[in-house]
């Protein structure tokens, strides 16, 4: 049971900076998801925790131990790889047992290798937890994708680590299996009460599984918070556009002050803003989620380009002041026709303002 702390950790590969000054505190027992687009450095960060890469700068702690220079096998962590990394020539039982063969474990206060009997017992336990009892004699080639994934998980839990590291473990599963496995993983987390560090580019996974998430783009931490926090108050444009499906709409605009109240002008229309300290004439980017935009009598002007009908709701894809805007609304009444002009507005509480240059949130 342990917390994981990144202190100013950077990782460079030659000229490329994969991880840029990470300061992240992962609490003991939480399910922390590192979310970000491909190549953003989240996997590298995970590998740094695992010890498969060494930090170029900074300190890494697991528990209260400084593990920056410690070898992977001595860090008391377990990892589930994207491709599962099962040894193809060993049986399920052999695969599950493998972390116990060469590593020394903490047993009854001492650090030693396990006996054959102890190893076997742990293997049986782990197999039972993941429902693999019947499959112990099989080889990975004879297993389905879901079964292989469970073997990878069993291999991880068998060493009773302080933390579990997972690198996009669901990406090789089909959609249905993915949804089911998400629930199983959350359940596993609750049963084991161990720290989980989970890497993914899929924000649905992040939102549904994380106790907290860290959005990573370009090797830098953009925002750390609960899914709710990240969704409702994105710290910058990256995060705003990355979280949410369909993604948040972002429009360029200029602040206007009318009767002491702040408004933002987008094209020909204006939107009323919530209380915000922004000077008249300031350029901003205003963000609003598709579900918060509604057709209304006033607001910004646009034209419906396409309607995507999804049964329970429909998406209106519109052009507003030259930018693409998506509106989610319940399927009430006839579908609007494409080509039809429309005015859209939103409650000021649901409008986010960002600086156009830095992307940072304003207010």
């Amino acid at each position, binding site marked *: 049971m342990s917390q994981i702390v990144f202190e100013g950790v950077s990782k460079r590969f030659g000229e490329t900076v994969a991880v840029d000054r990470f300061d992240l505190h992962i609490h003991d027992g939480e399910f922390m998801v590192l979310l970000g687009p491909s190549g953003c450095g989240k996997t590298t960060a995970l*590998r740094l925790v*695992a*010890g*498969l890469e060494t930090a170029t700068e900074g300190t890494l702690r697991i528990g209260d131990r400084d593990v920056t220079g410690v070898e*992977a*096998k001595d860090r008391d*962590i*377990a*990892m589930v*790889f*994207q*491709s*599962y*990394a099962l*040894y*193809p*020539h060993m049986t399920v039982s052999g695969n599950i047992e*493998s*972390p116990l*063969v*060469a*590593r020394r474990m903490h047993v009854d206060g001492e650090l030693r290798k396990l006996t054959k009997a102890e190893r076997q017992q742990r293997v049986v336990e782990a197999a039972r937890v993941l429902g693999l009892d019947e499959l112990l004699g099989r080889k990975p080639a004879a297993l389905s994708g879901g079964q292989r994934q469970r073997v990878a998980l069993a*291999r991880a839990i068998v060493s009773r680590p302080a933390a579990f590291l997972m690198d996009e473990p669901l990406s090789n599963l089909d959609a249905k299996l993915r949804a089911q496995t998400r629930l199983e993983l959350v359940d596993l987390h609750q049963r084991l009460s161990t720290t989980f560090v989970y890497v993914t580019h899929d924000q649905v996974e992040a939102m549904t599984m994380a106790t907290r998430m860290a959005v990573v783009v370009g090797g830098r931490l953009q925002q750390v918070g609960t899914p709710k926090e990240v969704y409702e108050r994105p710290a910058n444009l990256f995060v705003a556009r990355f979280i949410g499906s369909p993604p948040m709409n972002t429009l360029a605009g200029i602040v206007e002050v009318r009767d002491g109240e702040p408004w933002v002008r987008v094209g020909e229309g204006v939107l009323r803003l919530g209380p915000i300290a922004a000077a008249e004439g300031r350029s901003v980017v205003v963000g609003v989620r598709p579900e918060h935009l509604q057709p209304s009598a006033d607001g910004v002007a646009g034209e419906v380009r396409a309607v995507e009908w999804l049964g329970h709701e429909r998406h209106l894809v519109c052009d507003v002041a030259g930018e693409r805007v998506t509106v989610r609304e319940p399927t009430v009444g006839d579908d609007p026709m494409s080509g039809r002009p429309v005015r859209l507005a939103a409650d000021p509480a649901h409008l986010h303002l960002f600086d156009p240059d830095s992307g940072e949130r304003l207010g």
Partner: protein
Amino acid sequence: MAAEVVQARTTKVAWYVLLTALSVVVLAPVCLTLVRALSTPASYVREGLPPWPVDVQWDVWSRAFTDGELGRKLLVSALVTLVIVVCQLLTAVLAAYAFTFLDFPLRRTLFALFMATLMLPIEVTLIPNVQTVRSWGWLNSVPGLTAPFLATAFGVFLVRQGFLGIPRDLRDAAQLDGFGHLGFLRRVAVPVTRPLIASFAVIAFLSAWNQYTWPRAVVTEERWETIQIGLRSLSARTVDESNIGMAAALIAAVPVLTVLVLLQRHLVRGLTAGAVKG
């Protein structure tokens, strides 16, 4: 519809006929040699060289053994082949491991140098190597017969191809599992690439057993002759004893033929690893 079926059947039959004809052509030299090996040469010639044995001498095989001391020659070949195959396997696996999984200065250069040896076959390096071997007193000996072949770049290449195919994740998992280099080599790398390594062993066996030029250069005493160079003297006999030479040739091919039939899969895999994409 029936017409199509008939035509399909006719085409099939045509193919079988063609394939059988081609097989006859391919097998003819060996079959004819077998026929002649079993025949008494003089009678066989007199009968006008028929495609069946004439005046069969069943004891030609044992005569080949006693006359040509095949037993000793086969033993020498076997010993030399064993040493070469085992050493090539060891050196190739170790070197391939280094080139695939280790990081060290000059790695690319060294690999290029290793591969460059492929351009230096024994036919080119014959004269100096014979000098070296002679100066060490290794003529007519196992060390002399095997020394230049204890390592081969082809093996390093082949095994490295196999090792390269091991997914990165598997190496990471092994590292997390606490396996050092030796552990990883023994428990993961070699078992996973076993098919390719087996193929290399088959190819190494074939080329060691079939070698001619080098043994011919370093063997001057008959008792150290390998079976292949033994065939030369055995085949230089008169027509009346020609069947012995032929029998010896066939005997020499038996081990390889056995390996081919039993391990064809491995052989094919090894030969095509470098040649075929996909």
